[in-house]
């Protein structure tokens, strides 16, 4: 073998520093990629007579206790907002949503590049 003690020491130092730099870069990229889950505000509508409930997306102007225009399919009376809360979209929904969003931005970019 051609390796003496000094070269061995040098080589191990070089390998160690490369490994450290690589780890740091990976760690930085990893933390940047992690995003907080997307959130969505839900409004729960309830029929005060029969207890029928239905959820839909929050609309500006909604508040708990408001009588809305939507009617109960069974009783025909107006529904009341029973609760409003925030839900995080996780799992498959999140994946699909992110994918759709990415596609949309890519299409927009393509369109912009094409027009300019």
């Amino acid at each position, binding site marked *: 073998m*051609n*390796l*003496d003690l*000094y*070269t061995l*020491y*040098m080589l191990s130092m070089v390998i160690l520093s490369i490994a450290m730099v690589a780890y740091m870069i990976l760690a930085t990229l990893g933390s940047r990629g992690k995003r907080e889950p997307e*959130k969505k*505000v839900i409004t729960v509508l309830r029929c*005060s007579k029969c207890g029928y409930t239905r959820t839909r997306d*929050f609309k*500006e*102007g*909604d*508040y*708990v*206790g*408001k009588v809305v225009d939507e009617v109960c399919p069974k009783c025909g009376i107006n529904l009341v907002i029973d*609760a*409003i*809360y*925030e*839900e995080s979209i996780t799992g498959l929904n999140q994946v699909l949503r992110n994918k759709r969003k990415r596609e949309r931005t890519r299409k927009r970019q393509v369109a912009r590049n094409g027009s300019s």
Partner: protein
Amino acid sequence: MANATSPWFGGGSDLATWIIAISILISTILSIFAFLGVAQGFQLRIWKAQIESKLRILENYRDEVRDEVRKRLEKLGARNVEEVLNTALDYFVISPVSIEPTDIIKRLERVLRTEEERLEALVTRSLGSKVDDVVVKNSVTLLAIANALNILYKYIRHILLTGIKTRNALLVAQLWMLLPFYMRIAKAYYDASKVIARGVPIGDAAGPLAAYKLMKMLPRIEGPVEITKDTIYSVHEYENRRVIVVKAKGPGSTVGRPGEAVEKIVETLSPSSIASIITIDAALKMEGEPTGSIAEGTGVAMGDPGPEKIRIERIAVRHKIPLYAIAIKMGLEEAITAIKKEIVVGVEKAVEHAKRLIVEETRPGDTIIVVGVGNTLGVAQ
């Protein structure tokens, strides 16, 4: 022999000697620098750069909230928007003299009420008289958030500049270490502004939401009546008892004056007939506790600076009324951003707990006051 066969590894020993010599030289120079305080200067510069980048984020938060309020006010046809913003963003409250404690709570109440009334008047005057009360309340809350972000930004900038001017590395280091905590608060305020602008209830609405559920659940005898500014009560029947439910008047962003309301209710009714006062409020959870869990205790569950809380305590002492409290646990960010499903579930549990408490601790014929404490944004009655 090795030199002849391998040009790379052959000169290895010579190269390594040089590298080691240079490393020793560099570390010697660095340790001399460290003694001279140069290293600290470098460190200070790194801290400064990092604090400055966070300050830019903070400034952004403040400007975005300010622009949001400006946009909203202009859309509603407000006049002198810039003037309103300038006054509200730098508005300050001087705390009362505390070395003379007599009446301090009255003085504090006066100061806080003046602030509230002044900011509301500022927005009302700018918008004209025809405007909806809910819009005024929400705008005032947004202005208060912009004010808090502005003060936080100015404070951090002040500490940084003072630290650099006086070359106080420790002051800058301390600021750098506390910064993640301040940024967490700033982010929560920033997120809160988005939610409040849309009229979505926040986590702190847990108390008023519990009061609302109770009002819907129990047969109503009387009300709702506005008993004092922004605060309503209604009378209900439950298991042959009279339950008076108190909450801030929704759906605008306000906490009302629950203390004054309870005081008035107890004093106008025959005082001996009040069997107990139950307060339901959002409470800061400890790290590790689940959001939306509930706990029962005693005292007045209320996060105000003191004036409202003390009114209930005093009236309870005067008439020997037991005080029960139900806390709905949540984190700091959760309390001021959009209400989570776990908290709504917690509210339902709190309502059931309050009903059980009424049955267990009072007798038929008694009158009980239940107060839903908190900001009632997005929750009506």
